[in-house]
């Protein structure tokens, strides 16, 4: 399918933003990362459940705004998480984990109001996050992400992030890193 040039330009701009953002986290520039989050941020990672065929849409994932998920929080809470890491005595992240975020399969799912004047973008991607801790501890988190981005001057802000981790029982002792 042929798309207008502006669409490809926008996708590249969005990809650049996502890579930049991932790099801030990997470089542990957490406060700068927080600056990329909108004040009304929703940061959501559901718990995945084993359900009968036909009930996936209804019941497989916990829902944002109700019950218990892995994360269902706002910018205040994420700010507290960053503050905690920066105390130097948050032992789950002291010494700091080594983390690399891989972002791929980037797709523009929705652009508003138009590709030429993109103010809000819904973007889907896959993530592969590698965490290595202390000496021998390794975790790999793989899943899908849907982000709502909002134009902020010459850059973007993250207004909503949904992270679908491909696990039922969490196979890591902690979720002490950011996605």
């Amino acid at each position: 399918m042929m798309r207008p040039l502006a669409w490809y330009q926008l996708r590249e701009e969005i990809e650049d933003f996502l890579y930049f953002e991932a790099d801030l986290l990997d470089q542990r520039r957490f406060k700068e990362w927080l600056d990329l989050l909108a004040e009304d941020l929703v940061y959501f990672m559901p718990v995945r459940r084993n359900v009968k065929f036909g009930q996936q849409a209804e019941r497989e994932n916990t829902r944002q705004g109700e019950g218990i998920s892995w994360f269902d929080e706002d910018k205040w809470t994420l700010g507290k998480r960053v503050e905690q890491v920066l105390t130097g005595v948050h032992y789950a992240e002291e010494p700091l984990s080594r983390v690399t975020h891989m972002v791929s399969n980037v797709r523009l799912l929705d652009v508003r109001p138009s590709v030429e004047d993109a103010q809000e973008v819904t973007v889907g991607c896959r993530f592969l996050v590698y965490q290595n801790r202390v000496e021998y501890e390794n975790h790999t988190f793989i899943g899908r992400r849907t982000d709502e981005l909002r134009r902020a001057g010459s850059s973007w802000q993250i207004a909503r992030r949904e992270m679908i981790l491909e696990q039922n029982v969490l196979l890591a002792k902690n979720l002490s890193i950011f996605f």
Partner: protein
Amino acid sequence: MSAMDHKIDPAHGTISREIFVSPDFYREELEKLFTRAWLFVGHESQIPNPGDFVVSRMGEESVIVCRDQTGAVHVFLNSCRHRGMKVCRYEQGNTSLFVCPYHSWSYTTDGRLQGVPLYRALYEGTLNREEWSLIEVAKLALYRGTVWATWDPQAPDFLNYLDDAVDHPDQVVDCRDGRPGGAEVIGVHKWLFPANWKFAAENFLGDSYHNPSHRSVDMVGMGPSGQRGQSSRRDNEYAAGQRIWVGFPQGHGVASAWMPEQTEYASTYQQNPIVDEYFRHCFHERKRRLGEKARLLPVVGTIFPNASYHGRQPRSICVWHPHSPTETEGWRFFLVDADAPAEVKDVLRRYYMRYSGPAGMTEQDDMENWLYATAASKGTIARRYPFNYQLSMGAYKADDPVPGDVSTQATERMARNYYRVYAGYLNGGSWDELLGRPQICATAE
């Protein structure tokens, strides 16, 4: 003195590291402890209707907690009687039959073997279906919404097993305003971590001494009133009271608070007036309903062997399922009053998530401790040196102000007692012995 006594010596406050890493001890636990003790398997709010089921665990094994078509609750081993395939691999749902995927034997919700393909042609006259029901627990207890089970037909009734400890977990399973029961599970966290299960169970017996490991979360203040500038991870509801650490002969241990006779409501959840008001209302109602007993506020506790709770902020029941000597699957059931206003439930669930479980700002540090404590205890040299459990030896009084061995200072009395009972199970002790009857002076310090 047996080999076990040498390894588990509460009287001197030493416990061998072997019990936290050794496959031999682990096997003994599965054979002799998890087959006898009462285990928490779920909550009735997870299975409100006939045919509702939820999958749970007892020890290493998968079980189905199910409400049959008549409304009665059952707990079955999740394994077909024919070749052992799991008959249920959904976490939760509603069904009239559990159909084994392997050869399609099917079982009704009360456990009876109903469908056997080609029964007439292949089994007639040989297979008596009535003898091949799903394997059911020996005893089941429904207690104020919680569901408990044991494989031992000789086990005491659940309330005798809880005995004097009962008032502490009551405050967890009951409504905030003191009505019995009435809680609802709003979600469950399940995660696997490389630590011995007893580190977690012991932590919740009332190890308040480990608070320094949570310094970071107290420094940033993510508690219920954190947005109003309150530091620490909880509102200090207990400030006016006396902290008490209580051990019970059956191995249970709790940390609670005993509030003064005249206590005023201490404002909580200050960032949301509706929630603050709800807890104010509950405080006065609870006082009115419970009288003297309302002076007791729970903090944490462990019901022997592996069901722990957070009593108020946050509020949950956790189960530490053994996976191997050095692996545990943590399950945390989050509770709210079922009839609380929606706004209250919303504030609570958000607080629970930022506090508890593998993503919780407080519990992450616990995981770190348990993991590296397990790992560093595996070594040949390490295993020669026991852990120290001598904190506040002898510093307790009996039955003052509540039943049990009560300390008013942080103590490892509950852990010393827990491992004494633990050794009793591994030695194949009688139920009288495991329940601490008669009161034996060997338990004194």
